[in-house]
């Protein structure tokens, strides 16, 4: 990825977007960067497609076809790792 946005900013944006779209309503849930958002049931895999669109438009990048798999989108850590490759 060639755009330079800092790591912290990316994490903050991602966290906000995922939290907005969470499918659980428990106020006490704290989304951590290494949480697997699909396994924890925070979002369904259907959300992955919207997450991809969000990432590409917010960070002005195009995720490479070979990087698109559920694992790469399953946590904030993994997304950041993919983007910073």
């Amino acid at each position, binding site marked *: 990825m060639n755009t330079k946005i800092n790591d912290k900013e990316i994490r903050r944006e991602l966290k906000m977007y995922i939290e907005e779209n969470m499918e659980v309503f428990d106020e006490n849930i704290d989304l951590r960067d290494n949480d697997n958002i699909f396994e924890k049931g925070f979002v369904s*895999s*259907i959300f992955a*497609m*919207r997450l*991809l669109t969000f990432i590409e438009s917010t960070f002005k990048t195009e995720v490479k*076809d070979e990087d698109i*798999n*559920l694992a790469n989108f399953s946590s904030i850590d993994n997304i950041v790792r993919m983007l910073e490759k």
Partner: protein
Amino acid sequence: MKEIKCVVWDLDHTLWDGILSEGDPVKLKDGITEIIKELDHRGILLSISSKNNMSDAMAQLEQFGLKEYFLYPQINWSPKSESMKIIKDKLNIGMDTFLFIDDQGFEREEVASIHPDIRTLNAAEYHSLLTMPALNPKMLTAESQRRRLMYMEEEIRQEEEKYSETPRTFLERLNMKFTIAKANMEDLKRAEELTVRTNQLNSTGIQYDYQQLEQFMTDPDYCLLVCELTDRFGSYGKIGLVLLETRTDIWKIKLLLMSCRIVSRGVGTVLLSYIMKTAKAAGKRLQAEFKKTGRNRQMMIAYQLANFIEVGRDKDELLLENDLSTIQPYPPYIEIIASDQLV
């Protein structure tokens, strides 16, 4: 020549004679009402790009009894190329499926210079509209005749979505029902229409015609499925099609396509989950053919996010396989109506 899905009209000296903002008593051009109604009946969407005062122009259209025929009218003083972009984004169809009608060469050129794929027509030639081949879809289906209404229902949904606390509460209140069933004779026309109209979400870019689809429908080696989505606002119609080859122990998805309008509802994933479940229950392996067309990236993404992995490649043609180890459960807010067995 590609079919035109939307005709965008200028108003002054195009739809009517006279200039509204100069206080002229405007008069609809000869035969315009009939043309508008006929295009609408053919399932062709209509919109407006006009430099005018929005409320005056809409009041005038209402007086002519034509207001409800136009989706997302853009009546403002911005360049018309910008209005076209907005209409395109709202309707979610390709730029190359638009026809723009204006009496002024300047406006037609301005639009064409920014969007070279848009076809333009001099308003003086409006009488030729109904006989243009690109405006004569080969067949009319229940979906095409309801198309404008479906967009209007969608607009209400989007309004409601804006005011829902969370996306999830919105989806839950929709009461979505997704029906997956084997195609019957009545579905074939619509199935052909889907393969012709759906570019972005076609897994192979192949457009099958009526006869081919009819053969697949009756061939025991294949399973042709159609999907319908409804919610409390109405029916989205038959919006998905799957051609599954079931001849051997490796089931193969030869074609998967979805109408673009319903992607955000997540039913693509549901459909894939359904095929995966039935394949697994039948003890089969599951593969899918995919061909990059430059416009169907969304479909590739749907496959990849459902765990389909590339197992073979010949230039642009990919063979994908799903090991069926993890199958996403259906989201609780969609009721799935389908048979457990396909073959």
